[in-house]
């Protein structure tokens, strides 16, 4: 930091110019670094019921899995999700979707998830691990007030029927995916 003795105006304008030139690549590098940190943290954490890994060489697209928590309607069911990180990550939330069709009041038929921390409540502190844990707990505790799947929201009141229906749809979908 020898430049600190230089004229502040010159330094800042030079820095601004440099930031403008290398902004895109530098930002991408910083995002990649953070994603690497997250991957390492996630693999070391050994959290049960969640996992995630970059889909290919592309660090900006991950595939995650969530196991339904024991004692809930989603017990013993495993769901695959895709996580796409924008170049503005972690300042903007990643796009998270269910790949395995999920019958849930806050998940639509396309797999889109209605979760506040993925939208307006997003914070730069959240990472893949907290997102997956949040979705895992969303499975057990849906927000019935603003459902994407009204059928599921209605059926939620009858837990026995709900659990049965979740299992039926899950088995049907996974079978049709296998064949």
């Amino acid at each position, binding site marked *: *930091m020898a430049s*600190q*003795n230089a004229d*502040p105006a010159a*330094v*800042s*304008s030079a*820095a*601004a110019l440099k*930031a*403008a030139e290398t*902004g895109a690549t530098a930002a991408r590098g*910083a995002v990649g*670094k*953070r994603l690497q*940190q*997250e991957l*390492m*943290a*996630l693999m*070391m*954490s*050994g*959290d049960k019921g969640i996992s995630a890994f970059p889909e290919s060489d592309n660090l900006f697209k991950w595939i995650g899995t969530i196991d339904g928590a024991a004692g809930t309607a989603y017990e013993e069911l495993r769901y695959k999700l895709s996580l796409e990180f924008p170049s*503005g990550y*972690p*300042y*903007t939330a990643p796009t998270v979707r269910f790949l395995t069709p999920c019958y849930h009041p806050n998940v639509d038929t396309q797999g889109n998830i209605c979760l506040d921390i993925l939208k307006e409540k997003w*914070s*730069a*502190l959240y*990472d893949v*691990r*907290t997102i997956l*844990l949040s979705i895992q707990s969303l499975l057990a505790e849906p927000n019935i007030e603003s459902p994407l799947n009204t059928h599921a929201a209605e059926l939620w009141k009858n837990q026995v029927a709900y659990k049965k229906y979740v299992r039926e749809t899950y088995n049907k979908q996974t079978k049709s995916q296998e064949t």
Partner: protein
Amino acid sequence: MASKGPTASASTKSSSTGGTSGSSSSNGSGDNTNQDNTFECNICLDTAKDAVISLCGHLFCWPCLHQWLETRPNRQVCPVCKAGISRDKVIPLYGRGSTGQQDPREKTPPRPQGQRPEPENRGGFQGFGFGDGGFQMSFGIGAFPFGIFATAFNINDGRPPPAVPGTPQYVDEQFLSRLFLFVALVIMFWLLIA
């Protein structure tokens, strides 16, 4: 770089035992790796550079926090605890080894400087086209004698000393100045006889 591994593992261990709270300030074991991650930025998860601390006690790199604040100017909250936060409500941290005591907030890399060109800096390349606006304005106002003086002034003064002859701009400039001088004379004449 090799030390990153154990650091990351220690951080996740402490946070997984300590619930979902992001602050990894548990000083339970005094080993070095745990000590390190206490000073990690909450946004880039790396050791905080140009560190600032919020009034709620959360540590960030200033560039990281600055970008976070820029992302949502209407709702500036601490990423960790969602307390109110702003540029003026963070405290820069100066460690012993830090170079200089410059406030990190003074150098905000992601933000380009505001553009406010000085009037005389409009010279250089644009100097040749300098006259157009000025001339029109002085005549438009109707203070034509001053306009003429101003014109003469502008030509002799406002332009950079060697007005590279031969360039199209030079030719245009010469033509324009003569044209405007002629127009000025015509108007003056017209005023005299009117």
